């Protein structure tokens, strides 16, 4: 019998500092996650945590990790050549087939950019995949900005609104992402669009409400949830909301379902 929670050792290929507290680890592996899926990262003697895949390529995946927990704090002492232990990928990612040929609106708060990054990279690399991309990315302050180079590069192929909750920065706006939802030109999208929202729970709640206020139908909104998980395979119970397991049916949910997922 196979053990669905058996971690596999994988070599760290590179470590890049993204912000004051966030680092991106590129890890050697043959797995090919869907955009928006997550994996369980673990370190013997320390523990295990679910982390979304923030980019992927031939023979590697990337994880963008914030130094906030017991597991992630130890990951930060790792260097290229060291081992991380992986299992997965798990869950359901972004429904790319449904997004094909649509105008895409992507709204992120902080590291919420990580679970949509691999999808945005695909949109940038394959210009015909979707009609257009509008990216509204917000961060708490300048020190919290992640994927700086990509954000700058995306200003050309995408319509972008970058904002800081606090502080001034050239080329950036100031304010919460919810304040900029009304600037998204939904009327020009010919009712052929989808909106993706990822960030901390309050940000997703208020952005969802703001989208509805702007007349976006609830069946065109998608969200990705983050929850505590010990197993990621529907056993440990930590991520359950009603009859839904975020690890199995999520982390990506249509808003028609997400609006009922009250913890």
């Amino acid at each position, binding site marked *: *019998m196979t053990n669905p929670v058996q971690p596999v050792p994988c070599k760290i290929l590179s470590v890049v500092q993204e912000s004051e507290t966030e680092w991106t680890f590129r890890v050697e592996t043959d797995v090919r996650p869907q955009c928006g899926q997550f994996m369980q990262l673990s370190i013997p003697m320390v523990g295990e945590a679910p982390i979304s895949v923030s980019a992927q390529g031939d023979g590697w995946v990337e994880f963008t990790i914030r130094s906030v927990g*017991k*597991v992630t704090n130890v990951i930060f002492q790792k260097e290229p050549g060291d081992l991380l232990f992986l299992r997965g990928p798990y869950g359901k990612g972004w429904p790319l087939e449904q997004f094909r040929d649509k105008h895409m609106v992507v709204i992120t708060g902080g590291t919420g950019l990580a679970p949509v990054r691999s999808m945005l990279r695909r949109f940038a690399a394959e210009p015909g995949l979707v009609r257009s991309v509008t990216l509204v990315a917000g961060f708490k302050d300048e020190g919290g900005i992640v994927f700086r180079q990509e954000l700058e590069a995306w200003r050309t192929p995408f319509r972008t609104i970058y904002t800081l909750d606090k502080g001034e920065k050239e080329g950036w706006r100031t304010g919460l992402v919810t304040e900029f939802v009304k600037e998204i030109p939904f009327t020009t999208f010919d009712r052929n669009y989808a909106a993706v929202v990822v960030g901390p729970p309050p940000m997703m709640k208020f952005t969802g409400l703001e989208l509805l206020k702007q007349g976006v139908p609830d069946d065109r909104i998608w969200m990705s949830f983050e929850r505590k998980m*010990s*197993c990621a395979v529907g*056993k440990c*119970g930590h991520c359950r909301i009603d009859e839904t397991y975020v690890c*199995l049916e999520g982390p990506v949910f249509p808003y028609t379902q997400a609006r009922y997922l009250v913890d």
Partner: protein
Amino acid sequence: MGFRIEAGLADEILRELKKSYQIYAPKRFPGQGRFAETDLIRYDEVSALSEIVFDEKSDYPAKEVITPIQQAIFYFTEEEYRASRGKSKPILLFARPCDINAQRVQAKIYAGNGGYEDLYYTRMRERVKFVLMECPGGDDTCFCASMGTNRTDDYGMAVRPDGAGGLLAEVRDEELLPYFSQAPAADFTPAFVTENETAVTPPEIPDKETLLKLKAHPVWQEFNGRCISCGACTLACSTCTCFTTRDVVYGDNPEVGERRRVSASCQVEGFSDMAGGHSFRPTAGDRMRYKILHKFHDYKARFGDMHMCVGCGRCTSRCPAYISVTATVAKVNAAVAEIRGALGQ
């Protein structure tokens, strides 16, 4: 086949069975109850028939044998993970119908949910043959008849004490039959409880709008002042499956250790806290709502065949704040009636 087994022969049979089986049954631990001069009844290995408690419900469920409170799932040496191997000796597990039916629930989650089969559950469950203990009627916290868990045919053998230190037994399992060759045949099939002192009607929640309103209903707030979030109810629950993993380093050698699976309780604050500090369900009322709705709505909404609660009543018996699950469900039903009335349903 039915048998009448005298006390002396019963112990001889147990001794023979122990050569091939580990035998677990509810056992009395004198003076270990939670009040002075009270006993605790919990599952443990037994060697003699007199050790098995037939006439009282155990304080803790049979699930402790199959899904222990903690177990090693991996051993680490430097940077290697090795799954724990587990034992292979089969187990005879004495249990009442509620505890046997509880394994249908645990199996749905551990062995089926999401298409993933949990190695640690399945390898243990496959070792177990149930010995059905005919239930003499439970106590005033029981409501198995309401939950449809008062009957079962998942047993290799069924027993009833004969009142003289021996047993009446029905042996169905071919592998067990040879052990009973010395026992005289007797007509015996186990009887099942058909009604309890207490009855529970699970709430009828017809749609998501009603569920949302029920989640926001003030009925849960009463528990903010009653429930102390100790988790005694989930530990005593026949069906609760939740766990957390914890890595442990051995003594003075930081290169060697194990990853443990440890029972977790949704009633204890911090159950769903994330590394970044975000918490969910911050009040005792929120957590009670989460547990009660799982037992009497959410599980069935997912798996369809039965409710998660098997009506063993142990949560009521163990609660230090005297919260009765029966009374709680009645309050929830009143709240649902109020919501449905307002919605014109």
